């Protein structure tokens, strides 16, 4: 009998690891430099930082290299690394009105104070394969950078812009939410439902872009009643401050690039006495990821729905439990693990069920 119960697991996984490297390297092209990924695959790095919930462009770029460009796997590597880092400080609340914007647009008004700043976007490009990139030359790159004149922009633009939705608030057209006093930390405490708003926003903030987009899409397409309008979308750098013992004033610790979306949505479902007002869904994520920030804004609002029968995107437990890419990927993937024992148990049940069916058919047959 050739069967050996103890399989060669150790050897198998060592070989699998080697094969992963082999398939990454077998094309023999130049080794990828992490700085190239960080700079030239900027949006992938941003997505990985957002879903991995750690603002660390170099480590994110390294994780992308390690994961052969699988963003979900890279986000997982980053998230696992994050879990080993102690939480030393909590930053002061960020005022995004102080954002140094690289892009800000509004779908609600043609003219907004400060103006629409289109910034870096592919929205109005034609999706044609750019064959000229096949032979991109260093001299051309440098010439391009010399001629673009980015350095003149700070003179033309103000440092900060007023928020579009503040106009609506001032006119009383928008429901104003109470600020939460206590900040829940979902990395220190399991979520419970109904969730508090800070837990919900944190959970959305580290959600997987594709999953959030699909749910947000379902809501705006008709499984829900959100009717969104983009109040303002802004991308830019926000300063972070902490309170530090020994310092009287808050201490500046650096800046992060974020995308913020404010989604104006259907009337608030308050009590009948209150005047009708529009509501706001809020989205914010690390890096430049407009689709995620907008999806987050839509889901923040849709999950506050008071509809008696809820569409999937209106059920906060449904949304928040299923948008985490790292959890979802892990569990869907786990079915690759052996399930011999449980499947044997299933077969035992099925065979008994079949035998009982046959028995009863026999009894019926004999009675006939």
């Amino acid at each position: 009998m050739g069967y050996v119960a103890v399989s060669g697991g150790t050897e198998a996984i060592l070989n699998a690891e080697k094969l992963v490297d082999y398939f990454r390297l077998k094309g023999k092209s130049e080794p990828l430099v992490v700085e190239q990924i960080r700079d030239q695959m900027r949006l992938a790095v941003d997505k990985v930082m957002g879903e991995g919930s750690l603002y660390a462009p170099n480590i994110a770029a390294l994780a992308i290299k390690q994961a052969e460009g699988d963003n979900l796997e890279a986000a997982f590597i980053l998230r696992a690394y994050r879990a080993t880092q102690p939480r030393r400080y909590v930053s002061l609340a960020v005022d995004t009105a102080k954002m140094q914007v690289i892009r800000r647009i509004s779908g609600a008004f043609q003219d907004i104070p400060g103006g629409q700043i289109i910034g870096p976007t592919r929205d109005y490009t034609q999706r044609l394969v750019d064959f000229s990139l096949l032979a991109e030359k260093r001299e051309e790159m440098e010439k391009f950078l010399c001629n673009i004149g980015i350095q003149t922009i700070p003179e033309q633009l103000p440092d900060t812009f007023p928020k579009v939705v503040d106009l609506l608030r001032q006119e009383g057209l928008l429901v104003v939410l109470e600020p939460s006093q206590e900040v829940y930390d979902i990395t220190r405490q399991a979520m419970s439902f109904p969730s508090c708003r800070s837990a919900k926003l944190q959970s959305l903030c580290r959600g997987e872009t594709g999953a959030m987009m699909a749910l947000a899409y379902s809501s705006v397409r008709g499984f829900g009643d959100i009717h969104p309008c983009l109040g303002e979308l802004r991308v830019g750098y926000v300063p972070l401050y902490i309170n530090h013992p020994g310092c009287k004033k808050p201490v500046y610790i650096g800046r992060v690039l974020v995308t913020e979306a404010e989604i104006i949505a259907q009337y608030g479902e308050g009590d009948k006495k209150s005047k009708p007002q529009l509501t706001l869904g809020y989205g914010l994520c690390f890096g430049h990821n407009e689709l995620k920030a907008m999806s987050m804004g839509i889901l923040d609002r849709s999950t506050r729905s008071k509809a008696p029968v809820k569409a999937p995107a209106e059920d906060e437990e449904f949304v928040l439990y299923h948008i985490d890419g790292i959890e979802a990927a892990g569990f869907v993937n786990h079915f690759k693990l052996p399930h011999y024992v449980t499947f044997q148990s299933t077969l035992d049940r099925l065979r008994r069920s079949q035998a009982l069916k046959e028995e009863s058919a026999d009894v019926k047959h004999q009675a006939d």
Partner: protein
Amino acid sequence: MLNIRQINKHTGYNFAFLDENTKREIRRKTLKAVAIPGYQVPFASPELPIARGWGTGGLQVTMSIIGKDDILKVIDQGCDGGVNAVNIRNLLTKTTGVRTTFDTQAATIIQTRHRVPEEPLREDQILVLQVPIPEPLRYVEASTGKAQEMHAEMDYSRMWVFLYENIVKWGEITIGSRYPSLVNGRYLIDPSPIPRWDVPKLNMADTLFLFGAGREKRIYAVPPHTRVEPMEFEDHRFRVEDFTGRACVRCGSTDTYMNEIHDGSSGNKLYVCSDSSYCDKVRSRREDDLDGGK
């Protein structure tokens, strides 16, 4: 806070990977779980370098209770050599340096997926079970919030109806593993995907059973000498998997949980013990007997 002196120089990580604060939280939640048998205690469950759904709950429990003098055994499907068992054992030995064993009786902590070992466990041993879905009511209620209310009210009526309807439709209950069982006459648990074969081993045992669900962020426990009763009707009793007439092709045992394998060359269906360490023990005992007889 992270104790800098405890960081292992080779890996850059703390003893047993997790920092001491995280371990302390898990131990507190574990103590609560032991104090309220079968109650699912939420815990923070940070990410590990092992994927969610691949044993991160069990790992966190093991990491929080393991000490330098422990002797560790890790099994998957009852087998010490499976790829996932190897991977989990490697992470634990890399970050703790503890001794490991395949011998169930020599281990002080056993981390397992889908099996309770065949050999009876003692009071000085802890069995840590990896749990994919901690909620036994998930069969009938998808929402965790609603399921919590049902537990609070000990309202398990929908589960009884589910089992009854199974019998009406199929003549038999369809749940194979993960068989819902009542702990200490109070909380219904999902005993993790162990086969029904293993459920009676939890009842009034000498051992502490700890259940960790990492992705779902829950810990629960069956303390020693605690009643664990699988749901059953007076006229439809709980029954374990039937291996009548089967014997393990490796060791000849007829009283163990077995997996069926299809022999490609002969086309026959063969049976082999799922608990590989027990199977090896019986096999070598038989070989010794044969040698002694000569």
